[in-house]
C-alpha cells in the first residue's frame, strides 16, 4: 500500500474536525429524511412525497460535498511543503505521481466516507418507493466526480500558494466560481443551443462545469438557467467535463511535484522610489496606488491596526481594491445599460436581482476571507502575543481589525451604486425600493462580517478558521435560498418566509421584486433578525478577544 495514502487517510480520520463533520452529516441526513417521512397510514402512490425527500437529500448531499471536500486537499500540499516533509518525500524513492496519488487517494477515501454516511438516509428514501435505483446511482456518480474535481482543484491550488489559509480561500473561491459563475455565460450567450452559434455552445459547455444542472436533471427539475431551450444534457456534460478537468488538474499538479516547487525565492523588495523616473510614472499610471512605493508613517488619526491589516494583506492592498471596485462598477453599469437599451428582455427587477446576487456573492467570498483570520491569523503568526505586550487596548485592536474589513466591503457595495442610480433613472418609482435594497445589502455585509469574525476567532489555526468560516457563512446564506428553491414542495409558504427572514438577502430580493420573491413580506423583520444575530456574533467576538487578551 502506498504509505502516503495510509498516512493521509489515517491523518484525516484522526482529526476531530473530520469526525465531527461525519457525525453531523449522518445526523443531518437522517433528520432530513425523518422530517419528511409519512406520518399517516395512507400510501402516496404518485411518488411525490418520496421525490420531495429525495430532492432535499440530493441537494443536501451535494452541499455537503461542496462544503466539506475542498478544505482537505487545499491544505494538503502546502502544509506538507511548509512543514518540510514534502522535501523529505521528494527526496525519497517515491516519484511525484505516487506522492500525488497517495495524497489524493487519502482525500478521496474521506469523500467516500462522507458519501457512505448518507447511505442509511438514501436507503430509507429508496424504501419510500417512487424513486428508481438508477436515480440514486446517477446522483452518487455525479457527487463522486464532483469530489474528484474539487480534490484535484484543491491540490493544484495547494501546490502554488505559500500558506494554508490562502489555499483554503482560493480553493473555496474557485469552487464557488465553478458552482455558480459557470452558469452565467450560458445565460448571456444562449441562442439556439447545441449546434447553434459558437458562443452559445461554449456557454453551454461552461455551464456544465457546474454540478447544479446535472443534479437538477437527476432530481427531475429540468435544467437550471436553460429557460426551456434545448441544451446539452447536464448529466452527460458534467461527467465528461469533470473527468476531463480532473485529469488536466491532476496532470498539472503532478508536473509541479518536483524540486521546482521550492524554487520560489521571493523578491526581497524592489522599491519604486529607487527606480528611474519613467518607471515610477509608468507604475503610478498602472497601479494608481503603487504597492511598491515607500510608505510614510501611519498618521495619528488612523487606527494603526487597521493600517497594518491593509498593508499585510496581499489582496487587501489599495491597488487590488481599486481594481475590484472598478470591475464591480463596470459590471453593474453594463447590466443596467443592457436592461435600459433593451438588449435583454429581463426588466429592471431581474437586473436588480442580478445586481443583488452579484454583491451578495462578493460579500460571501470576501467577508470570510478577510474576517476569519482577524484573530486566528495573529495567533498563528505569533503576532497576538506581541500585540498583547503593547499598550493598545483590546477595543482599539479589534475595532481596527474590523474596520479594515468594513472599508473593503463598503467599497465593494459602493461600487455598484452607479448601477442602482441608473436603475432609478430608468424607473424613478423604484427609488424607495433601491434604498431598502441598499440597506439590506449593508446588513448583509455586517452580518457576514460578524459571523466570519466571531466564528474565525474560535480557532487557533488560520486554515481551520478560514475553512470552517466559509462553510458557516455559505450555509447561513445559501440554506434559505435552497429552502426557497423548494417553495412549492416540499416547503410551504410560511417555512420559506421564515427561512428567508434569517438573512437580509431574501429581503433584498423581495424588495426588488425579483422573480419568485415578490410574495414574501420580509421587511422590517429581516433587518431586526440580522441586527440581533449580528450583535450576538459581535458579542461572541468581544468575549473571545477579552478571553485571549487577559492575563491568567
Amino acid at each position, binding site marked *: 500500500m502506498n504509505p502516503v495514502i495510509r498516512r493521509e487517510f489515517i491523518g484525516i480520520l484522526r482529526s476531530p474536525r473530520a469526525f465531527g463533520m461525519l457525525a453531523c452529516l449522518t445526523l443531518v441526513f437522517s433528520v432530513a429524511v425523518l422530517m419528511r417521512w409519512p406520518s399517516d397510514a395512507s400510501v402516496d402512490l404518485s411518488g411525490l412525497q418520496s421525490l420531495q425527500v429525495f430532492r432535499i437529500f440530493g441537494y443536501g448531499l451535494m452541499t455537503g460535498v461542496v462544503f466539506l471536500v475542498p478544505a482537505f486537499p487545499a491544505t494538503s500540499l502546502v502544509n506538507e511543503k511548509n512543514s518540510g516533509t514534502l522535501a523529505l518525500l521528494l527526496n525519497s524513492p517515491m516519484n511525484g505521481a505516487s506522492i500525488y496519488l497517495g495524497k489524493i487517494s487519502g482525500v478521496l477515501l474521506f469523500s467516500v466516507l462522507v458519501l457512505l454516511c448518507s447511505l442509511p438516509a438514501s436507503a430509507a428514501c429508496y424504501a419510500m418507493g417512487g424513486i428508481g435505483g438508477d436515480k440514486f446511482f446517477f446522483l452518487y456518480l455525479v457527487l463522486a466526480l464532483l469530489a474528484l474535481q474539487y480534490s484535484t482543484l484543491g491540490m493544484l491550488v495547494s501546490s502554488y500558494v505559500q500558506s494554508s489559509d490562502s489555499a483554503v480561500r482560493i480553493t473555496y473561491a474557485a469552487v464557488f466560481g465553478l458552482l455558480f459563475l459557470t452558469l452565467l455565460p450560458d445565460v448571456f450567450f444562449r441562442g439556439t443551443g447545441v449546434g447553434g452559434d459558437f458562443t452559445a455552445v461554449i456557454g453551454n459547455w461552461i455551464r456544465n462545469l457546474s454540478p447544479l444542472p446535472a443534479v437538477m436533471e437527476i432530481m427531475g427539475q429540468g435544467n437550471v438557467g436553460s429557460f426551456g431551450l434545448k441544451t446539452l444534457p447536464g448529466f452527460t456534460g458534467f461527467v465528461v467535463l469533470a473527468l476531463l478537468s480532473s485529469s488536466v488538474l491532476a496532470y498539472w499538479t503532478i508536473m509541479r511535484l518536483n524540486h521546482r516547487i521550492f524554487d520560489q525565492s521571493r523578491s526581497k523588495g524592489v522599491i519604486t522610489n529607487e527606480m528611474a523616473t519613467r518607471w515610477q510614472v509608468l507604475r503610478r499610471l498602472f497601479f494608481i496606488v503603487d504597492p511598491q512605493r515607500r510608505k*510614510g508613517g501611519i498618521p*495619528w488619526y488612523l487606527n494603526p491596526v487597521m493600517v497594518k491589516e491593509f*498593508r*499585510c494583506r496581499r489582496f487587501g492592498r489599495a491597488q487590488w481594491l481599486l481594481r475590484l471596485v472598478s470591475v464591480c462598477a463596470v459590471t453593474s453599469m453594463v447590466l443596467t445599460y443592457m436592461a435600459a437599451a433593451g438588449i435583454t428582455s429581463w426588466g429592471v427587477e431581474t437586473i436588480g436581482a442580478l445586481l443583488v446576487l452579484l454583491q451578495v456573492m462578493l460579500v460571501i467570498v470576501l467577508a470570510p476571507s478577510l474576517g476569519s483570520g482577524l484573530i486566528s491569523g495573529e495567533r498563528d*503568526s505569533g*503576532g497576538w502575543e506581541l500585540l498583547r505586550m503593547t499598550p493598545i487596548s483590546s477595543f482599539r485592536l479589534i475595532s481596527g481589525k474590523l474596520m479594515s474589513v468594513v472599508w473593503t466591503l463598503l467599497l465593494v457595495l459602493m461600487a455598484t451604486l452607479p448601477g442602482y442610480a441608473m436603475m432609478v433613472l430608468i424607473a424613478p418609482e423604484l427609488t424607495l425600493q433601491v434604498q431598502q435594497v441598499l440597506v439590506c445589502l449593508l446588513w448583509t455585509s455586517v452580518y457576514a462580517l460578524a459571523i466570519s469574525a466571531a466564528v474565525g476567532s474560535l480557532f487557533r489555526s488560520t486554515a481551520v478558521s478560514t475553512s470552517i468560516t466559509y462553510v458557516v457563512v455559505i450555509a447561513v446564506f445559501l440554506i434559505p435560498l435552497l429552502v426557497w428553491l423548494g417553495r412549492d414542495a416540499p416547503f410551504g409558504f410560511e417555512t420559506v418566509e421564515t427561512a428567508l427572514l434569517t438573512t437580509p438577502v431574501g429581503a433584498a430580493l423581495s424588495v426588488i421584486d425579483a422573480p419568485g420573491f415578490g410574495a414574501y413580506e420580509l421587511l422590517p423583520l429581516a433587518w431586526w433578525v440580522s441586527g440581533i444575530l449580528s450583535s450576538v456574533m459581535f458579542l461572541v467576538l468581544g468575549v473571545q478577544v477579552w478571553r485571549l487578551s487577559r*492575563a491568567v
Partner: protein
Amino acid sequence: MSVSESNAVIQIDQLTKQYGEFTALDSLSMEVRQGQILGFIGPNGAGKTTTIKILVGLLRPTSGRASIAGADCVTESRKIKKLVGYMPDDFGKYNNMRVSEYLDFFGAVYGISRKPRLKRVDEVLEIAGATYMKDLFVDALSRGMQQRVALARTMMHDPEVLILDEPANGLDPQARIDMRTLLLRLSEMGKTLIVTSHILPELARVCDVVAMITKGRMRAFGTVDSIMRDIQQRRTFEIQLLDRDSVLQATAAVQAWLDAQAGHEKGGPGKATGAEAEQMVRFNTSLADDAIAPLLAELVQQGQPVSQFREVATDLEDAFLHVANEEQQSPVAQQSGEVAAS
C-alpha cells in the same frame, strides 16, 4: 533560595504560579539592578518563560509579587508595557510588510507620534545593525535577520528593561558575536536586560549575573564566578607526565598525599585516577590553592616527570549540569522516578 540587591530595577518576591496541581514556579525571588545583564537559564520546562510572562504582564502569579521600576506587574500592566521590551522566541512576522512598515506599526501601537517614530525606526535599525534591511519584506528575511529586526522592534519604544528570549537562537557564529556586542552596548546605554539562552558559553560572556532555575525553583543566583564557587566545591586538577610508565606510580603518590590531607578536606579525601594513554593523573579536591601547592613540590622531589600541573577550568555549562544532575538525584525526583517506573 532568595537573593536581594539594593537599587533593583526588577524585583521578584516569592513568585509562585500553579496550574491546578502542577507548580510551574515555586517561591522564586531575585533582584536585578539597572544596567545589569541577567542570564536566565534552566532546562526546558523549568519555568523561565512563565517568569518572563508574569514580568511582562501576560500571566498572573498565583502568589508573590513582581515589579519593574516600581510598577507592579499585575496591577500596573499598562505602565509595565511601556517600561519593558519583550522579544519572544517566536518572531511574530506579518506577511507583505516591509521592515520599515513593520517597525512603524509597532511604534504607532506604542503611541509614538509620526515624526519621532520615523526617526526612531532609523535609530533602532542602526543599533540593531539592520539598516540595510529597511526596505526588505519581513517574511523574506533569514532567521538571523529576523532576530535583528525583532530586537529593533523591542527597542522601538525605548524601554528601560529588555527581556530577550533566546536571542542567539539560529544565528551563525558571526551573528552571535554581533548579538553579544549588541547586548553589551545596550547594557552600556543603561538598559537592564534579562536574556535566556541555551548557549551557555555565550551567556557567560555577556552576563553580569546568572539565575539558574529548575522545576520552578531558584537553584543558583549570582555572578558566574560566585556560582562556580558555590556549586563546584571540589575542583579537578590534571598532572601531565612526560612518559606513560610513571602514571601508575604518580597516581599512587597523589592518592597517598590526598589521604594524608583528609583531615582538611570537606566531605572526605580527594580521589586520584590515572590515564596511561594520556600520560596524565587527575584528582579532585576541596583544598584551597595554597594547600595544594606542596603536592607539586613533593612530586618533583620524588622524581616524577611532571611537565604540567593545572586546574581544569569549569564553565557555566558544567555548573548548569551540576545543578541539573543534583536536581535529578534529589529525593523528590527519585521518588517520582520510582512512581513512573512502577
